[in-house]
Every structure is written in structure tokens, then in C-alpha cells.
């Protein structure tokens, strides 16, 4: 498998960060610190990834850097990083089959609004070892924490909605679209890190958001966001575009092509 390497935006910093006093909950960029706080950067060498005809999933490496690293904290291994690649959102319907007259058919359904079509998260270690579950939840730092907002709530009650929500999450996980890589982020030097994710074969197309969070001893100290376009390339892309935008022409061309192949088959393999 090829690996796509999104190259580094490197920053090197030797300045010490302020001593860690933060064992408490309030996070966010430290304000008015006397010594500059850490900053995190991630770099993508390319703003687009093109899916070609042999696409069967691919490894994606995102490099990043931390500015103003506190060497003490670094030596103690108390810096942790999350890198998340989130796909474009769409409204999704989850349907549940039940037996009707012996036949299994979709009976109940529950819609969800603005569901990320994919959610890949890499971290330096198990998320629950890095920070509290309320922080994980607030920042959506894991598959369990992806926000799945139900549309119109069905009359069947809350428990049922929970069941649909769990099913949606499970299906996304099974297809590799929601994935966690608990040791996917590795420090390659004091301030540089590398996040490795795997894009599944059916990764959604469109604008993905890459987010990175730096935790210092369990507390969020910096974050950053960038975007990545995933689209089809080459002939596939042209065909997809044509099917979407020039659909009538596309249909006529498909038929003309079939007529030609049919005629060709007759000429090549004359059966009578």
C-alpha cells in the first residue's frame, strides 16, 4: 500500500513553556501567560488527495510540530496529541428491519442531522489515559464522542433513539469510516510528531477537516485546524462529474457506448 505523506510544517522552539499548574478542568489556550504558551501546527503538503481507479484505501501521514515545548514536560512524556480527520457532514437516515409477514423489511427509521461521514482519530495513547471523559466528550475526541444529533425525535421515545444512535456508530465503525488509532501519533523529535491514519476505500469525497489538539499533562493547551479535499481524480473524476452535471449527456453516451459494444460483439463473434 502506498502511503500518502502530507509533509511537515515544522516549527522549532527552545523557549520554555510556563510550568504546569493546570490539574484542574478549565482548559483552552492559556491567556496572558508570561512565557509564550505552546502552539501546535499540522501541515499538509497537499490540499487535495485524489482517488484514482486502483484506490483501495490508503495510509495518510500528517506531520505536525509543537512550538514552545517545555523540555521538562516533554521528557516526562506528558505531552499528548490528538489528530482528527473528519469528513464532510450529511444528513443520514438509519433504518431498522423488522419481520412483517415473515419478510424482513425496513420499518422504523431515525434521521440524524449533520453527521460526519467519516471520523478518523489518532492519538499518542489511549484517549481515556490522556484526559477526562468530559473533555473527550466536549471536544469530540473519539468515535464514542462523535456527535450524532437526531433529527425529529420519533414518538417511540429516547431509548429507541439511543439504539439507533448506537447502530449508526457501530455501522460506521464496521465500515472503517469511524476509526481510532490509539497509538497513531508518535513524536519523532522533541517538537515534531507524526500522525498515521488509514483512509478506508470508501472514504467520502469532499472537504475534510483536520484538527489537532495538544494536551499538556491532561489539559488542553493548544489546537489547530486545517482542511483537506478528497476528490476523485483522472477519468473516474471526469466520469463522476459528468454523471452529476451533464447527466443527460452522460446517459446518452452510456447508451451509445452500449450500442457500439453490442454491434462490435456481433461483428467480432458472428454467431450465424
Amino acid at each position, binding site marked *: 500500500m502506498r502511503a500518502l505523506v502530507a509533509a511537515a510544517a515544522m516549527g522549532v522552539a527552545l523557549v520554555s513553556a510556563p510550568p504546569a499548574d493546570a490539574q484542574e478542568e478549565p482548559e483552552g489556550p492559556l491567556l496572558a501567560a508570561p512565557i509564550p504558551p505552546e502552539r501546535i501546527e499540522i501541515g499538509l503538503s497537499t490540499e487535495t488527495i485524489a482517488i484514482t481507479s486502483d484506490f*483501495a484505501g490508503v495510509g495518510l501521514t500528517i506531520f505536525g510540530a509543537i512550538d514552545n515545548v517545555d523540555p521538562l514536560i516533554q521528557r516526562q512524556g506528558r505531552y499528548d496529541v490528538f489528530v482528527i480527520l473528519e469528513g464532510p457532514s450529511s444528513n443520514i437516515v438509519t433504518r431498522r428491519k423488522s419481520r412483517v409477514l415473515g419478510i424482513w423489511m425496513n420499518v422504523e427509521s431515525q434521521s440524524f442531522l449533520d453527521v460526519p461521514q467519516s471520523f478518523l482519530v489518532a492519538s499518542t495513547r489511549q484517549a481515556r489515559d490522556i484526559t477526562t471523559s468530559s473533555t473527550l466528550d466536549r471536544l469530540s475526541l473519539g468515535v464514542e464522542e462523535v456527535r450524532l444529533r437526531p433529527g425529529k425525535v420519533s414518538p417511540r421515545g429516547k431509548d429507541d433513539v439511543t439504539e439507533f444512535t448506537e447502530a449508526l456508530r457501530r455501522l*460506521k465503525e464496521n465500515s472503517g469510516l469511524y476509526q481510532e488509532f490509539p497509538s497513531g501519533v508518535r513524536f519523532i523529535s522533541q517538537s515534531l510528531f507524526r500522525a498515521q491514519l488509514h483512509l478506508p476505500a*470508501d472514504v467520502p469525497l469532499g472537504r475534510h477537516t483536520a484538527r489537532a489538539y495538544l494536551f499538556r499533562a491532561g489539559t488542553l493547551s493548544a489546537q489547530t485546524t486545517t482542511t483537506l479535499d478528497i476528490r476523485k481524480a483522472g477519468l473516474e473524476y471526469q466520469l463522476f462529474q459528468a454523471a452529476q452535471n451533464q*447527466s443527460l449527456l452522460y446517459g446518452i453516451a*452510456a447508451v451509445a457506448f452500449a450500442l457500439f*459494444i453490442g454491434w462490435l460483439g456481433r461483428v467480432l463473434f458472428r454467431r450465424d
Partner: protein
Amino acid sequence: MALYLPIAEMSVNIFVLLGMGAAVGFLSGMFGVGGGFLITPLLIFYNIPPAVAVATGANQVVASSVSGVLSHFKRGTVDVKLGSVLLVGGIAGSSVGVWIFALLRDLGQLDLFVSILYVVFLGTVGGLMMAESIRAMARARAGATIGLRRPGQHMWVHKLPFKMRFKASKLYVSVIPVVLLGAMIGMLASIMGVGGGFIMVPAMIYLLKVPTNVVIGTSLFQIIFVAAYTTIVHATANQTVDVVLAMLLMAGSVAGAQYGAKAGQKLRGEQLRALLAALVLLVALRLAYTLFITPDELYTISTDFLL
């Protein structure tokens, strides 16, 4: 070797699809059917989204019907006039079918509906064919002559008004059943992704009393247009025609068809029909099985088009 399908949005094994096309082509060459009724379920078994399988199946039917109809034109066994009247109904039926198709997809019942249609039609046609060929084989063993009942007896179909003369078929019938038959097949074609030959042929023989020698040519002739129209409408309304997928299937089926035709010449007519019936029943059973067994996963997700 993996290939990415641009419309189905998935990676597939190129050899599996070529093989699938070849196998169906072999069978269609052997039995003289379009093969759409086999291609679409096979694609669905291979996890191609049913919406794409149906629309692409229609596209593939165009190619296989053209190959077939050209040889029928050469032999003069196409009733263009009858085919055109069927076509009028077919186009109307197909338009309705595509509309129903989109509606069912939005309601999340498309997969179920397509499966049920396949089970019902393949089950019925396969069962009837099987019974008929077994009777024929029994008669052949008893030494009786084999032949379909000749037209001549009049049914209610022949008492309807708006009669029209079809010279090539030596027929004088009302256009109402012809147009209705065309419409029904057109509708099925667009929902099931088939040419509809496997329903059209027996209906023309038993209902309209069309002579058997012009039935297949005429049916193929109108199927080309209905399938072509269905392909274009699916492409514009649902964007579900995958030309890469269609190309693989066509390449396989065109090559497979000639070997199938050779193999078919070595078998007797009623044996051939019994074999085809067995095959049709097998596909129906396999589809029925998925309807009735408890699925591993009760939940499915799809992008919401209605919101």
C-alpha cells in the same frame, strides 16, 4: 486487481466482474435471453448498491440486445410494427417505473421491493418453464410430437376494440393489450434493471399468440429502446449508471455469449429450457432466502434525500 467504480463509489475486483459478465453472457448465448435478470441480482449479491445495479444492468441489456437483434434482422424475424406499438407502452411504463424507483429509494424500501419483484417474477416464470419443459420431455419420451398450441382459438384479448394488423406476425389484434403489455414490461424493466424478455416472450406467445419465430427478435428489438430509455432516465433522475461497471459487464458478456451459443447447440430444446428454468428458480430462491432469514445486521444507513 482492484478497480474503483466512480458511480458505485467502491472498489471491486475487475476479474470477478469480468467473470460475472462472461458467465451471464455464456448463459444468455446458450438460452437466447438478455441476461439482465441474472446480472442485476448478481451485482446486488456482490454488494453493489441496488440503485446502481439496476441502472447499470439496464445499460448492459442495451448491448446484449443489440447483438441479438442484428442476427434476427438478418433472418427477417423482427416485427418492427408490433415492436413499435409495444415500445409506445414501454416508454410510458418505464417513465412511471423510474419515478416509483426514486420514491422507493427515498422511502428506504427499494432493496426490498426489487428483491420481492425478482422473487415473484423469477419464481413464477421459472416454475412455469420448468413444468412445461418436464411435460415436453415426458411427451418426447412417449414419442408424441412436440409443438406449442397453434393460434386460432380466440380469447378475451382478441375481442377488444382498436384492432391493428401486424403483417410480419400474421396478427390482427387490438392495440390495447399490446400497449399495456409494453407498459408493464417497461415499468418492470426500469425498477428491476432487466430487459424483460423473460416475461415478454411468454406473454407474447401465450397472450397475444405471436408466432414463436418472430417473438424473440421483436422482443429484443423493443427491449433495446426501452433499456436505452431507462438508462438515460436513470442517468438523469438518479445518477446511478456506472459506465465503468457497465463496460466490464459488457466485455465479459459479449465474449461469453459466443461460447454459450455453441454450447446451446449441443443441447435439446426442452433440456435447455429445463436448465434455464432451474437457473431462474435458483436465483429466485437465493433472493427469497435473504428476505426470510434473520439478517446479521438489522440496521442500515443511507444519506437522507428527503430532508
